[in-house]
């Protein structure tokens, strides 16, 4: 398949972008950061094209049974990678904090490369239960939400690396060194909060579209299946984060840790449930 070739190029581009962001951290050269961002953007465009091509190929392969590339584990992991880069580029547009790239591109690269290496890229026909428009809405909302949580996690890691040193730092003027080069902790904390604010309604929508679909297919919108339950666990964690944060100014370390834990739960909800527990979301495998 041609799209497989394109996806391999995407992996290369994201790897290069990640390396360039690391070099940027080391050299603090603005040209490097621009190059890194441009590489990430071209990787993103390639990935978009590859997803489109895979969509087209599904029609070539299955005739009228073709479908958007959002239906199995391979496709969802690739789409996750695409969503992460999309959210990152949007944040870059708004905040222009290029160092974040070094902490978020690894997530995107890991999903894209992991999908290429370990997952079955075949385009198989869908079982009847998956033939629904709800599938598309459900997957898109969930993964954009997950991507926002990934970004929040990356930024929280930066925050946690920086805050300890910053609290001990006693000189006047900005902190030197690599840590001084990272965005101010105030900005990191703000991005963490905003990313979760974007991710939370998306997750809510993802859960609701999943429930609506289940109701349409089986007549139950909620059956406490492990995937549903874990999505609710993630929802409660981020709801706790938001409440702790809104009303009491629970900024800082604890917020950052909750964000990291929330993302770990998200990943378990996404992959762990399929690998470890049993239930409805076996991705037709």
């Amino acid at each position: 398949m041609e799209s497989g070739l394109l996806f391999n190029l995407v992996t290369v581009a994201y790897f290069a972008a990640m390396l360039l962001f690391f070099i940027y951290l080391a050299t603090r050269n603005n040209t490097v950061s621009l190059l890194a961002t441009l590489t990430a953007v071209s990787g993103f465009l390639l990935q978009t094209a590859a997803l489109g091509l895979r969509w087209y190929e599904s029609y070539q392969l299955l005739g009228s049974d073709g479908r958007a590339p959002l239906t199995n584990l391979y496709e969802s992991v690739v789409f996750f990678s695409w969503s992460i880069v999309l959210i990152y580029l949007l944040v870059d547009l708004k905040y222009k904090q290029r160092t974040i790239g070094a902490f978020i591109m690894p997530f995107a690269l890991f999903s894209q490369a992991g999908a290429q290496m370990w997952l079955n890229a075949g385009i198989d026909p869908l079982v009847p239960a998956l033939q629904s428009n709800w599938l598309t809405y459900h997957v898109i909302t969930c993964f954009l939400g997950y991507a926002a949580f990934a970004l929040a996690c990356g930024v929280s890691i930066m925050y946690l690396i920086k805050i300890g040193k910053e609290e001990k730092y006693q000189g006047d003027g900005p902190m030197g060194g690599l840590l001084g080069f990272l965005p101010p902790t105030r900005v990191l904390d703000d991005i963490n909060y905003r990313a979760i604010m974007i991710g939370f309604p998306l997750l809510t929508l993802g859960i609701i579209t999943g429930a609506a679909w289940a109701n349409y297919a089986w007549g139950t919108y909620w059956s406490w299946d492990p995937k549903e339950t874990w999505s609710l666990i993630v929802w409660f964690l981020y709801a706790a984060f938001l409440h702790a944060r809104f009303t009491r100014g629970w900024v800082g370390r604890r917020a950052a840790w909750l964000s990291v834990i929330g993302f770990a739960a998200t990943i378990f909800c996404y992959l762990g449930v399929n690998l470890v527990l049993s239930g409805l979301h076996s991705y037709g495998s």
Partner: protein
Amino acid sequence: MTEKKNSLSDRVWDFFCSLKLTITIMLLLAVTSIIGTVIQQNAPAADYIKEYGQANYKLFVKLQFVDMYHSWWFIGLLGLFSINLICCSIKNFPRAWKFVKSPMLVASPGILKNSANRAEYTTKEDKQQLAGRLTDLLKKEFGKTTVTEVDGKLYLFAQKGIYSRFGAYMTHLSILIIMAGAIIGNLWGYKAYVNIVEGTSIKQVLSSSGQTPINLGFTVRCDNFSVIYYPNSRRPKDYYSDLVVLENGREMVHKRIEVNDPLTYKGITFYQASYGSAGNAIFKIKVTENATGKTMNFNARRGEHVKLPNGYSFSINGFTENDRQFGPAMQLHVNSPDGKHGRPFIVWQKYPQFDVKRAGTFSFALINYEEPQFTGLQVAKDPGVNIVWFGSFLMVFGSLTAFFFSHKRIWACLETAGGKTKLQVVANAHRNQPGFALAFDEFKQKLDAVVENKSPAKKG
């Protein structure tokens, strides 16, 4: 005595209103929910004993881990969650409403002095003139601006996003609405299933929980069931049933249902869930009386004795869809008039002339056979489901309002002191202060320009 009682009820009230309780319950709900994803729910007792041992099983039953999402403690947590939600809302709503009813048009000295976001200027310009330009800026950035004069001082006030103070209440209300919908569905609805053999009809379904029959109040007939497979594969692409709803013998609704496309009639919904063989195929058989050449057609089931002329009868003993690559074949025997069992023989559908050669009293041909299938339907009645959808919509709408907008207020105070005009500007947002602090920093540059009567572009 009364005072003590008061303070106790105050303390109880404060406990139920506290945000600490909210966060604790949310984290508790998150952590305890894991149990039911690790321990299988509602499995037969033998499964638990096999996996965890007798002693652990007893413990699980005691702690209601085998059906934890319906356990008293989990429902209790959800109940506490709702009480907390209601109390928080009751406590805080009047405060939010006050911002609408009586906005603080004049900044208090405390606000002017202690706000985190503040700017202060001193210029020689007349305060009225400056106030005019400032009003224009506030109008542009915040909306409607109110000017109040108190004791020779000019106070400006502007705000935006006040409705966002109600996003949280909408979200909280939505959770209660969803819970109410779920409870209504549980109390007045049911989940059931039914298998309908093609061509037959049913009036009752079996409840999933107790397997007790439930009367539908109407009749459902399945005229036809079909499975379509993907080419060269046994993977079903689609399966569907043609259902007819009948009331008092009249056909009310016809619908072809398939997975992801159910039929709803009078609040009861039928979902295509499964299918299977209903056994007992019907064989269409042509019998020729060899002596006379007379032919007869019969519909026969396996094991059933079918009468033939002159006291003979036959019966089908067996059937296979593929006999040694010769295709469908049945085994049958003929009973003679004295009741004697004849020797069994085989008739292949594709080779009817073989049985003619057998030269019995009768020769048999298998015209076709129909193996009826049943369609498996999930049946659900859920009068609460639309309430749940309404709650879900409100939740998304409310949380978007709450997250992406905040109530931002800005005050300015202009006073003349010693021939100069002193201007103080303070602002706050009711949430996301760090984000607003960044925005205020940007706003300050515009403010600088207005005070200096320059546009920032000219300055650069």
